[in-house]
């Protein structure tokens, strides 16, 4: 329950008087306010800065440090105040949480120090209000990524037993791990550079013999260049094979971009080796040599910057695509216009619309080569409009589009984030709702259980102390239950959990069995059975794990029942197993669950299978598979 709303609990309880005249059953007793003291101010001294607040304010959240008795550990007898040796700035947010019910995240705070303070004071960060939640999560994610990067750097420390293969792979991936790796790294780098320069120099016209026309160096010093090329390809092949051998996942390695580049870089050489002196494909062979330029991409293994650029381009692909599309539109429009404008002119270079594309592009980007110029007046007019709009179309929107799409991109990310957070938020709200209703159901069972033990109460440990506010809230819900009345006018409706409701809903269609009273007070001498939860599985763990399971207490033997057995010892099983025990048959040897924590004695009875006599007040479930059996034994 929210903090501020707890202050309205007295109002809600007072308003419950409105139900009283309508109810037909007596109301449960209100929880007594033991040691009701006047509200007092308490002083919280946090590293010298004193905060003061009402004690009730802190009591609103009993499962935090300040709201529970844990703060007594910090009580300073001499100064009569609670002293915390923590950050006073962050404590401001923590205390405001108690006051307003909303936890805010101050933007100037470091995220890890804030988390530590929250952990110290026992506050779950998930309850940060919506106003600050996005910021908090962003910062947390950044921090986590930074930590991960740091961890990856630390992983370079050599692990003791690594196979030769793993060592090799690590050497390939991080050249600074060993000297050998560094040498390898530089050698391959050198050879890539050599290979690229060779490709370039091959085409330069070298000095020629006096009576021959100029030939490129490649043709003049064929052998030298061939040897150089061979050497480089040898190195690259060996490197590729070694990487392939060392890769932990070969298939994934073969699919990676870098390995594809490697393959494309060395393949032309081998293809050239295979098909030499074949006139038909020599043209294709020449084309293949172009692919040798891909060797320059091998540098991206050596340069982090290139990799980042590639990644950026990949991630902005859609924005770039749209930019290209809009440019294409403008180009087509102007090319068409120019073509039709220049159609009349003779010896016009604008032979077709695609031919005009070149003119449009050159003009719009303000390059203006001058190889194609319009000659007609209309052509010149449109040409000038084209160049003017080229400035507008290209120069202006490019930064606008870039920033626009950066904004839209982040907006989309935020929309997805918000959607994910909304789901998480709704889940949180649902969880808190079920939490509070489960707490109520649980305390009700506790309450009934305790009433049953009025006879012989051995252990008071059973009752887990809920806060006063909680017990008052539960009492309120209990009154509401009592107000509603069911058919027989003897029993009332009660809150149940989802599972049970669904099951009973199904069965209500099947049979019309009478309802049961959860009350144990022998008003009409009926046997109370809080064994109304007959569902097989318990879906959410109850907060109080130490509390005993619900049981089926019967305070006295009932003359209507036949075949009752009374066992004098009781074993209360934990909730999770009691359900299965409920479904057990009598003859089945039930495994005693020795995990239960508390012992008490009570009287239970094992009724006979389906009681078909609804007369009298003992109503048992008529379902065939359900036996109200609770195995008990004293521990």
């Amino acid at each position, binding site marked *: 329950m929210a903090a501020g709303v707890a202050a309205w609990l*007295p109002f809600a309880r007072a308003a419950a008087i409105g139900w009283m005249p309508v109810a037909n059953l007596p109301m449960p007793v209100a929880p007594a306010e033991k040691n009701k003291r006047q509200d007092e101010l308490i002083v919280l001294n946090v590293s010298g800065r004193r905060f003061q607040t009402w004690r009730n304010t802190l009591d609103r959240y009993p499962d935090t440090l300040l709201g529970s008795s844990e703060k007594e550990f910090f009580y300073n007898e001499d100064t009569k105040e609670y002293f915390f040796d923590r950050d006073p700035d962050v404590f401001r947010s923590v205390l405001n949480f108690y006051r*307003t019910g909303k936890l805010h995240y101050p933007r100037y705070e470091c995220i890890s120090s804030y988390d530590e303070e929250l952990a110290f004071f026992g506050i779950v960060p998930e309850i940060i209000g919506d106003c600050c939640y996005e910021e908090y999560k962003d910062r947390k994610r950044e921090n986590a990524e930074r930590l991960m990067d740091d961890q990856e750097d630390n992983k370079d420390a050599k692990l003791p037993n690594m196979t030769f293969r793993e060592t090799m792979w690590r050497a390939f991936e991080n050249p600074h791990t060993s000297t050998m790796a560094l040498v390898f790294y530089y050698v391959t780098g050198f050879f890539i550079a050599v290979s690229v320069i060779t490709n370039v120099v091959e085409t330069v016209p070298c000095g020629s013999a006096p009576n021959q026309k100029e030939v490129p160096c490649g043709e003049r010093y064929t052998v030298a260049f061939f040897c150089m090329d061979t050497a480089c390809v040898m190195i690259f092949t060996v490197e590729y094979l070694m990487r392939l051998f060392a890769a932990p996942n070969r298939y994934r390695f073969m699919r990676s971009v870098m390995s594809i580049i490697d393959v494309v870089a060395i393949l032309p050489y081998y293809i050239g080796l295979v098909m030499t002196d074949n006139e038909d494909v020599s043209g294709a062979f020449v084309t293949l040599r172009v692919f040798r330029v891909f060797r320059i991409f091998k540098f991206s293994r050596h340069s982090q910057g290139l990799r980042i650029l590639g990644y950026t381009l990949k991630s902005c692909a859609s924005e770039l695509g749209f930019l290209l599309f809009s440019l294409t539109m403008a180009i087509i429009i102007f090319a068409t216009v120019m073509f039709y404008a220049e159609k009349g002119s003779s010896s016009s270079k604008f032979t077709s619309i695609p031919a005009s594309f070149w003119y449009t592009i050159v003009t719009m980007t303000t390059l203006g080569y001058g190889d194609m110029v319009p000659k007609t007046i209309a052509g010149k007019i449109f040409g000038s409009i084209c160049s003017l709009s080229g400035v507008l179309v290209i120069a202006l929107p490019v930064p606008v589009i870039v920033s626009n799409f950066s904004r839209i991109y982040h907006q989309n990310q935020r929309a997805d984030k918000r959607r994910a957070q909304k789901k998480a938020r709704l889940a949180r709200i649902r969880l808190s709702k*079920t939490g509070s209703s489960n707490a109520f159901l649980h305390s009700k069972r506790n309450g009934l259980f305790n009433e049953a033990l009025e006879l012989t109460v051995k252990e008071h440990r059973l009752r887990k102390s809920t806060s006063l506010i909680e017990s008052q809230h539960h009492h309120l*819900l209990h009154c509401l239950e009592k107000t509603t009345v069911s058919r027989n006018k003897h029993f009332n409706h009660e809150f149940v959990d989802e599972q049970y409701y669904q099951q009973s809903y199904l069965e209500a269609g099947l049979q019309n069995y009478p309802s049961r009273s959860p009350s144990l007070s022998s008003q009409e001498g009926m046997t109370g059975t809080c064994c109304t939860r007959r569902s097989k599985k318990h879906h959410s763990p109850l907060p109080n794990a130490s509390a005993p399971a619900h049981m089926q207490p019967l305070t006295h033997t009932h003359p209507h029942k036949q075949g009752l057995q009374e066992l004098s010892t009781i074993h209360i099983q934990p909730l999770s197993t009691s359900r299965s025990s409920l479904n057990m048959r009598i003859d089945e040897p039930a495994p005693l669950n020795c995990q239960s924590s508390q012992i008490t004695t009570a009287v239970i009875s094992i009724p006979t299978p389906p009681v078909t006599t609804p007369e009298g007040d003992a109503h048992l479930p008529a379902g065939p598979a359900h036996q109200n059996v609770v195995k008990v034994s004293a521990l």
Partner: protein
Amino acid sequence: MGALMVIFSLQTKQRRKPTDSVEDELELSAVRHRPEGLEQLEAQTRFSRKELQILYRGFKNECPSGVVNEETFKDIYAQFFPQGDASTYAHFLFNAFDNDHNGSVSFEDFVMGLSILLRGTVQEKLIWAFNLYDINKDGYITKEEMLDIMKAIYDMMGKCTYPVLKEETPRQHVEVFFQKMDKNKDGVVTIDEFIDCCQNDENIMRSMHLFENVL
């Protein structure tokens, strides 16, 4: 031509602005309410000074503007009943607290209502309950009014109840109520019938004292 269109649209935007801003300003002046002095409230209600202080602090914390409107009221009340839909009952409750029927509950209304409920005599409490049930405040509780109230109460229970809530359960409950309360069987319950009947019912009398130690 595109430039002309852009200029034109900019102008129309500018013309629309002045009228909007005035209305916005009117809305921004928030409703604020300051309650009467502590002494006056002390005289009018049965709360002590300290209790009034505690009540006001809680009230003002949740509603800094000093008044509760129906939406906030419904939200607050709904937090106590997570499983069901408390809005209808909260609506009736709001009308019962809003004595001057101005659509908002100020601190005085709030404290007057609480004074009756927590410190009033049984008679006063019963009169308050009667006012709650009498939706149109005509002095009679009809079956329709009672049915509305009953449905609102059952709505608060929500879906997951045992046994399953049927359609006719509120109606049956209303019948039971009328059988008990309507002495002359004229189909309506007057305030005297109501008070008489309640005073004769032990359960109800006992439950009236249930919340006396709330504050």
